[in-house]
């Protein structure tokens, strides 16, 4: 009997093979966070010193904060990309019908196929900045980065449901352009990754409150900015993330069966 584990295993195998066959991709994944931080520091220094930035954001080590923010930003982006693009990219490759021919429910295929990349990409990103974290803050920095990875992985659970919803919508609409490319930066903007949510217009703040990334950012900031964050502060985003996990994934599993029937009636595959 084929189950979600088979689908997960298959996608994990494909992802590992893909990285193994594209070694430059691993290299660029390792370099990318440093380029991003370098760009942000360079851009920021045009409008003020890094000390000013640290004061405004309220963190002790701004470089470390920027690095961990980049991990969160990139991981969140890649998770959204990996799941929303799953249907589109496989349709372009012509592999989607064969994947959907697996004798398991389509909901299971969509969710289980997105998970391996959602785990691999944050792990690679965290591994890439681990040396810098150790250099900047010693062992405590390494532990903080591991904690950030844990919270990002926990935070990805509602993101999977969210991305499945977006992916199904794209498939149904027969939309060939990758809306994920537009959605992902917007998700970052309203999640308060580099700037506090409070400075955004009220509408964007409301959208931000409905997005799981906002709480991932909040929790990760607490971890990366302070060595021992107060537990009660950390619990709030964790509770909200748990609620969002149920919410988004429940809606996704309800919607995707209907979306699948609609897609199969429409003849999109």
């Amino acid at each position: 009997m084929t189950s979600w584990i088979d689908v997960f295993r298959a996608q994990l195998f494909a992802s590992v093979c893909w990285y193994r066959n594209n070694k430059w991709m691993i290299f660029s994944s390792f370099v990318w966070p440093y380029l991003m931080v370098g760009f942000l520091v360079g851009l920021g220094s045009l409008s003020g010193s890094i000390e000013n930035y640290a004061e405004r954001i309220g963190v002790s080590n701004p470089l470390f904060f920027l690095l961990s923010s980049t991990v969160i930003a990139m991981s969140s982006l890649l998770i959204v990309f990996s799941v929303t693009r799953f249907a589109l990219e496989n349709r372009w490759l012509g592999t989607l019908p064969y994947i959907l021919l697996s004798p398991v429910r389509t909901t299971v295929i969509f969710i289980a196929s997105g998970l391996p990349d959602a785990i691999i990409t944050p792990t690679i990103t965290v591994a890439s900045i681990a040396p810098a974290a150790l250099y900047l803050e010693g062992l405590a920095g390494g532990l903080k980065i591991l904690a950030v990875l844990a919270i990002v992985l926990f935070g990805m659970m509602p993101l999977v449901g969210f991305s499945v919803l977006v992916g199904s919508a794209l498939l149904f609409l027969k939309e060939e352009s990758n809306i994920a490319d537009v959605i992902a930066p917007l998700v970052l903007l309203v999640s308060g990754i580099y700037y506090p949510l409070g400075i955004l217009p009220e509408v964007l703040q409301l959208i931000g409150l409905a997005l799981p990334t906002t709480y991932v950012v909040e929790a990760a900031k607490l971890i990366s900015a302070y060595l021992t964050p107060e537990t009660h502060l950390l619990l709030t985003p964790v509770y909200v993330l748990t609620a969002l996990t149920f919410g988004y994934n429940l809606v996704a599993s309800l919607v995707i069966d209907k979306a699948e029937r609609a897609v199969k009636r429409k003849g999109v595959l």
Partner: protein
Amino acid sequence: MTKAIEVERLVKRYTSFLRRGLFRHEKIVVEALKGVSFDVDYGEVFGLLGPNGAGKTTTVKILSTLLIPDEGEARVAGFDVVESPSMVRKHIGVTLTVEKGFFWKLTGRENLSYFGMLRGLKGLQLRRRVDELMKMLGLDSLGASDKFYEEYSLGMRARLSLARALLTDPPVLILDEPTLGLDPSSARYIRKLLLRFAREDGKAILLTTHNMFEAEVICDRVAIIDKGRIIAIGTVQELKKTVAGRAVINITASSPPIELKLLEAKFMETVTGEVSLRLDDQGKLRIRVVSKIGEEELHLSEVVKLLSSLGVRVNRVELEEPSLEDVFVALTRRRGSGVDQLDRRI
């Protein structure tokens, strides 16, 4: 014993919107299938023939559970395609297009392993099956097993597609143009395998094709589908009887001075028989005229007259019995589908 595939009065409509202005769209409903019925037995190779847009791929997609019909019923291996899609998927192997459908940056072996895992194969069983298929499909001997898919020739891709369809050794194979675009030796290899699967393993094989020669060589029965309806069904011999009382004239002539399309148009205007034209590998013009018995001479003289007016020299004239292609042309022409949709690679 139940049939491998049972299709009853299948209807499928597609809705599309035609842009009539910046904000105005016209809704268009196209009926791709208009009550298609047929069945396929285990151990049988069944061919679905038809011009482009006839409804072949729609039928294949419905039987593969990738499309839901609007009306009618279809059962594969005894399971309803709408009610029990997972059970149907368990019993089928499918190829939809041979030129894509794999990950470009993965090797053939890695691709097969991935799709094998998706179908529940694992560990030693998976490795053995992948190795076995690589050998069976000749990919091993071509040195293609560990090549990236992007480096595969079309022939290798077709073989890999068939290997994927066979991963779980399913009793029913549904193949949409499995030899399209292949060189003659690859196409022959695939046909040989398909015949073996049907005769020795008792698999039911439904294949769609444009290639009349292929259908004639490997199909036990064929159905000709046109504009969403099955217009003829039976063995090749039975179908040939539908054009009994006809003669086929094969003419070989020198290379024409005008493009083939223009020449076709001229033939349509002047010759009253059913004509199909193609250029062979040497650039010679091959003309095939299907005539009613007694009208051969008239049609031959019309053709010769037209060719001489264009300065084309006739090299050879032969008479033969009608082929499946002639049946196809005759039947689809009666319905106004035209010969221009025929695959001329035959």
